[in-house]
Structures are given as structure tokens and as C-alpha cells.
């Protein structure tokens, strides 16, 4: 059974609530493929890596508070969402994350030049994965002007083409908008009309209008906390309705038996005799978001509300004052941003450099290398069809030709001398000569 998370910007806190519920009550669902776009891809990645939810929540709240701090909110020049996200990912994702998620994580991207949807699931290196995740979160203008590259092609937010990538028939869809998804908030409304934007069904209700505005403008921590709770409750209701909650022992038995799952009522028939399952289901009926997560939210709410500064800022007069001083604060913000940009230049261009390095794998480069260098080692053998094959091994560590390393890459390599393994040697297997 696969999961799919809808992209939704700052509403992504909803996915955190869903993730908490799945981890607690249906860990077997996390064994399959997980797809997502934008923030959905990020949460999918975190789920696959089994990162501690508490840390993720803290990080999301950190991003939100940074976004709310600037003069123009998330549109302030000093707030660079791409950098903030990259920082978070560098910090929390394990070193071998690309190995863990390759083949499981499916990231939906939109190719910039033709607007077509691309789903990526293989990530040879950690940088590749980070790059794909960043590209999937790139909203033009909001995140920056030039979309990031992934394998040399510019991509932007998957939400522009397929916001809820469905891999096959048995995909559980998770969306923070009330609509036709498996796990989504159920608004108190009986509206018959809904739209289908980029594969995400969105009911035309007042609540959804409000949510839509929250995609790019993060709300207060109180509202975020409620959204997270809602995610947890909705996921729990889904599991209850589909009989997917069992005790750990029964789960272990189930997962050894059924390798392919179907979203049928029959497959998840829990053992009615198992007392432990029963109590587990009973507990789940009244369960709420775990305390660890709730405390984090409570802290964020408290820190946003307590203190003399916050009290002053909440006064109506002060709010008008901040609005009036906006024209003066924005230029200052821009100046500050252009100064700090110098400092973070390296991080932004980092991705682009990686992609040029990836080009080394193309055929032209291999051809260039082989014609300009002497083979270190070559061996010949006959393959199964009795054809002569040759494998040559080249040492290109010190090669100075542009074919191997661009001047920029050479510089980087000199700076990153501790990081040897990816610039080490290129093995060219160009059989059949």
C-alpha cells in the first residue's frame, strides 16, 4: 500500500499530525512507497527516514517563526525559504538518506520549460536528493527567481502539475484541503461543488478558501497546532474506518502474510479474538496527539504570547504603527538581505555545481576522458555471446582537462579536500571495442 502527500506549503503541519498517527497506529503502512510534492515530499522523506517527529515539528515551527518575522512576512527579502529548508535538511537528514529513500520516495516535480510533470525516485547521492526536494518546494517569485536545477534541468514545485502523485490504485491520499482524498479534514459543509487543481480535489468551501491563503502565509502557532491535531484525528478516523489498527503482534503476523495489499475491507480484517487488538482500538478511539508534540506546540504558543515585547506588539496601536512604518522597514530589510546574501552565496550555488559534476557521467565526457588519458588498467574478456569486451580503468584525480573537471569544480575540489569519495576515480566501462 502506498501513501501520497499533497503539497501545501505551510499547511504541511497537517502532514506531521498524520505522520504521528501512522507511526503510532499503522507503522506497516510506512513500508511501501511514499510520494509527494512540495512539502508533502519533505514529510514523505522524513517519514521514510524515521526521523523523530518532535524534531521535525520544532523545525517546521522554526521555519514558520522565521517567515513571520520579516517585514513583509514570508515575502520579506531577508527570508529565503530555500536556504532555510536546506539548512534544516542538512541538519536532520542522515548521511545515507539517499540509500534509504531511493526507490521508495517519489518526488513530483514540474519541468520548467514545458510544464510537464516528472516523478523522481532514484537518488544516487545525498545532494541529488536534497536538490530534488528543494526543486519540489520551489514556488517562483516566492522562493526566488531562478528555479534550481536537478540533473541539469530546471524544475519547480510539483504542485504546478501534479500536487498529489498517485502511484497506483491502492494509494492512500493525504491532503490538508477538504475534498475527495482519503485523509483530509471534513468541513461542516454539504457543498456539491469542488475543483480539481493539479490532481488535488478541493471543495469550494469557506474553510478551504481560508486554507488556501495559508499556503504561503503561515498562520499563528495556535492555528498550526490545531491543524496538526486535525491531521492526527483525520488519520485516526481513516484507520478506524478501514480496520487498519491492530496490536503489534497481529501486525507482525499480517505483514508476513500479505506482501501485496489491497484497499479492500477483507485484507485488513483484524482478528476479532485478539484482546490486545481490541484494547488497542479502544484506546485509539479517545487518543489525541502525543504529549511530546503537544508540548512543542505549547512552547511555541507561549513564546509567541508571553513577554512584554509580544504584549506590546499585540496592542492595536502598535499594529497600526508597524503597518505605517512598513515603507521604511522594507528598504532596510532589502539592504540587510543583500549583505547576508553574500554570505550565503556559496550555499545557493552549491546545487548548481553539483549538477555540472553529474554531467561527468554523460557519454561525451567519458569519450573525452578516454581519448585524453592513458588507462591505468585494462582487461579484456569474452562475454556470454563470445564477443570481445574491454574494461579500462582511468585515474582522473589529477587530470586537469576541462572534460573531467570544470575550472569551478577544480576550485571546489581544492576547497573540499576532506571530501574525496565523489571526485576520486571515474571508472569507464565502455565495452565492445
Amino acid at each position, binding site marked *: 500500500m502506498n501513501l501520497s502527500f499533497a503539497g501545501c506549503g505551510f499547511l504541511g503541519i497537517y502532514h506531521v499530525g498524520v505522520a504521528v498517527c501512522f507511526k503510532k497506529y499503522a507503522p506497516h503502512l510506512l513500508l511501501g512507497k511514499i510520494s509527494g510534492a512540495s512539502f508533502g515530499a519533505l514529510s514523505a522523506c522524513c517519514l521514510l527516514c524515521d526521523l523523530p517527529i518532535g524534531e521535525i515539528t520544532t523545525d517546521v515551527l522554526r521555519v514558520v517563526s522565521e517567515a513571520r518575522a520579516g517585514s513583509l512576512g514570508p515575502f520579506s527579502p531577508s527570508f529565503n525559504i530555500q536556504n532555510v529548508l536546506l539548512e534544516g535538511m542538512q541538519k536532520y537528514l542522515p548521511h545515507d538518506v539517499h540509500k534509504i529513500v531511493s526507490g521508495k520516495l517519489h518526488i513530483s516535480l514540474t519541468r520548467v520549460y514545458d510544464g510537464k510533470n516528472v516523478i523522481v525516485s532514484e537518488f544516487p547521492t545525498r545532494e541529488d536528493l536534497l536538490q530534488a526536494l528543494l526543486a519540489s518546494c520551489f514556488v517562483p517569485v516566492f522562493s526566488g527567481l531562478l528555479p534550481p536545477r536537478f540533473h541539469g534541468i530546471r524544475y519547480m514545485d510539483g504542485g504546478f502539475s501534479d500536487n498529489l502523485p498517485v502511484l497506483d*490504485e491502492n494509494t492512500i491520499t493525504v491532503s490538508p484541503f*477538504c*475534498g*475527495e*482524498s*482519503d485523509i483530509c479534514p*471534513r*468541513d*461542516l*459543509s*454539504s*457543498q*456539491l*461543488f*469542488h*475543483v*480539481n*487543481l493539479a*490532481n488535488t*480535489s478541493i*471543495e469550494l*468551501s*469557506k*474553510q478551504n*478558501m*481560508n486554507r488556501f*491563503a495559508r499556503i504561503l502565509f503561515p498562520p499563528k502557532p495556535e492555528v498550526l497546532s490545531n491543524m496538526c491535531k486535525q491531521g492526527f484525528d483525520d488519520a485516526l478516523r481513516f484507520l478506524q*474506518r*478501514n480496520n487498519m489498527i491492530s496490536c503489534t503482534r497481529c501486525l507482525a503476523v499480517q505483514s508476513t502474510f500479505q506482501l501485496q495489499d489491497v*484497499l*479492500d*475491507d477483507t485484507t485488513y480484517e483484524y482478528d476479532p479474538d485478539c484482546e490486545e487488538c481490541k484494547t488497542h482500538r479502544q484506546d485509539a478511539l479517545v487518543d489525541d496527539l502525543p504529549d511530546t508534540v503537544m508540548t512543542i506546540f505549547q512552547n511555541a504558543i507561549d513564546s509567541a504570547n508571553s513577554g512584554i515585547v509580544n504584549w506590546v506588539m499585540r496592542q492595536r496601536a502598535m499594529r497600526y504603527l508597524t503597518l505605517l512604518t512598513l515603507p521604511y522597514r522594507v528598504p532596510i530589510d532589502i539592504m540587510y538581505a543583500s549583505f547576508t546574501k553574500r554570505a550565503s552565496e556559496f550555499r545557493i550555488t552549491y546545487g548548481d555545481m553539483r549538477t555540472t559534476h553529474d554531467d561527468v557521467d554523460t557519454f561525451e565526457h567519458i569519450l573525452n576522458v578516454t581519448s585524453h588519458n592513458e588507462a591505468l588498467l585494462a582487461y579484456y574478456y569474452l562475454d556470454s555471446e563470445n564477443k570481445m569486451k574491454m574494461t579500462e580503468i582511468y585515474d582522473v584525480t589529477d587530470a586537469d582537462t576541462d572534460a573531467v573537471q570544470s575550472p569551478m569544480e577544480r576550485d571546489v575540489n581544492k576547497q573540499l579536500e576532506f571530501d574525496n569519495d565523489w571526485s576520486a576515480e571515474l571508472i569507464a566501462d565502455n565495452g565492445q571495442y
Partner: protein
Amino acid sequence: MGSELNLEPAESSWTGGWFSWTRQSDAMLRNVEKKILSCLKTAYKRFYVDIGSVVGQSDKIWTISLNDESPKIPLVMLHGMGAGLALWCPNLDSFAASRPVYAIDLLGFGRSSRPKFASDAQKAEAQWVESVEEWRREVNIAQFILLGHSLGGYIATAYAIKYPERVRHLVLADPWGFAERPPNAYEKAQLPLWVRAIATAVQPLNPLWAVRAAGPAGKWLVSKTRPDISRKYLNFIPDAEKVIPEYIYQCNSQTPSGEAAFHTLMTGFGWAKNPMVRRVDEIDPALPITVLYGSRSWVDNSTGQVLVEHRGPTNTFVQVINGAGHHVYLDKPEQFNKFVLEACTRADAHDPRPALAVANKPPALEAPAVPPAIEGPDNLPGKVQSTSEARTS
């Protein structure tokens, strides 16, 4: 109100055709409907049924019938809000294999007449019920299985309340208008001002106003906002991505009379003024009901539970179709067809009419006490204009 049925091409005017995109739409609607129906494997007849003056001066109901020679109890299908009979194409073949099937465009929708309905919710509802009853009388069916989707489900229920002796079995597919509007005192505090402002501004408009306001871009708007519907039809119609948005657009770009009536029935954002929950007890307890709804549908799916609670489980069958949304007949057509056929088999086996006849007013209209014999099309009254083409494949 016969002008909408006028198939003559519109004459050119001084506006140079700039405002004429809806002018020809009945001819266009006929063509596009024919294209969709060409995917059917069963032979069908299409005709207008003249039901006289029910709402307007002379109302006509556009009907398609399949396999009407069969002696079994016919199935009558009522579509949902903003739809038309052609959207049943994934289901018609399967139902028509065993019994006569009639699908109609509800009065005010599709190719039927578009008279002005009453502006009172109860009256508008009664008008719709009467139009279905008049239609039944004209087509001369004594008893039938009534299937309604969404708004059609609401009308079907209202019909079953008024004329229980005509309905052999009621099948509701994700029906609209059952739940009571819950009081939400906090709504004002929860929503920002701008959202409430937009909601208040949109409230007096007909639900699909945007499609007509978009003018020539309406078809594009439909295909962009609901690409999922066309995609689901791809299994049945090869060029669905072109035909289905065109059909939906043409159905809704004309005078929005059915839509206005739906708007009359509605209060707030999509709630019924007279929800069926209040009237569940008025449905004959002997009348069997099958409720089908999709697990993903956002229309309140407590309908089934409410019916079971009020009527007991013996006469009410509730089925949830996993993975299906509101358009349950389209999302999972095989399962939907299976459940409906099961309901039809139950209807064949069990005749509630003796019980109904006792329970209801004895002055039977013209209902014979014996199992219904379906009159062949040859003794249809002259009012039925069997104009259109019969098709065999």
C-alpha cells in the same frame, strides 16, 4: 419556453457572433451527447416526452431508453446537479443487459425544457416530483426501480415519499440534501473577514455562475477545474478529454433554470432547506432502499446510518464503495453496477406492493394489484414524440 429546444441555427446578428456562444448550444449539445452515447453497446432510443404544463407552458423531458422490450421492472435514472443523462454511459450497458433502462434529463437540466421554477423550496421540490410523475404517466410505466445520484437522489426520495406505490426499490447514490445544517456559532470567529465577504458575495449567485460568466472561456474553465472527470471517462470514450468538458459546459451554459431551482432548495453553502432527515419517517417503511456512497465523498455520508436507524436494517441496504468519491458511478463503475444490479435483483424477488397497498391510501390510481406488465412502445400515447433515431450496433 420552447425556444431552448429550437434546433435551428441562430441567425447572424449585428454583434457579429460575439455573444452567440450559447445561442447554438442546443444543437451542439445534441451532437456532443450523441458522440458520448456512441460508446454504448446496447441499442438505444432517444426522444422527448411532452409532459404538458407542469412548470412552464409545455415542458418536454429528454429521455433515453434501452432494452425497453424487456418485460422486467424498468430502472429509471436521475442524474445529479449540473449533469445530464449522457454521463451515465459507464453504467447504462450493464443495467440494460437485464431490464429496461430509462435515463432522463431532469427538468431544467441537459436537453430538457428550462422553465422557471417556483422560488419557494417546497414548491420547487414538488414541481420536480410532479415532472417525474408526469413523465412516468406519459411513458406508461406502472412501477419502476428509481436510481438517483446527488440532487437526483434528493428528488428520487421526494418522489418516493409522494408516490410510494410507483417505486419498487429506491437506490440512492451519494444523495444530496439529507443532513441537517449543523449550527456553528464559532464560524464567524474562525474565519477571517475576507473569506466571509467573498462567501456573502457569492451566496446569491447560482452555483455554476462562473461557467456562464466566463463566456467563450467556459469550456476551458470546465476542463481546467475538473480534469478528473474527463480522465475517468477515458476508459469508455476515446476522446473524453474533449467531449466531456464540452458536454458539461453545454449542459450548464443555457438558461440556468434547474440550477436556480437547486439554489432555491439550498441554504448556506450546500445545505438543504428541507433536509430529508426530517422526513425519513414519511418514506414508506415497506419500501426497500439501497444507499451507495463513495468512501472519499465529502457529501455527508451519515445518510445510510440515519436511514438504517429510522427504518431498521431489514429494508435498508447501505454500501460504501472504497476509493470512490462523490461521482460514485464513475469512480468505481464495476462495483457500482454490481451493487445496483444486486438491488435490482432484490427488487425483482420482493414486491413490497401488497404491503404498500395496505399501508397507503386505498383509492388506487390505476395501479393493478398484479405484478406490473410493461406496455410496449406501440401503445404509448400520442403525446410521446418518438422522434429520434434508434441505433443498433
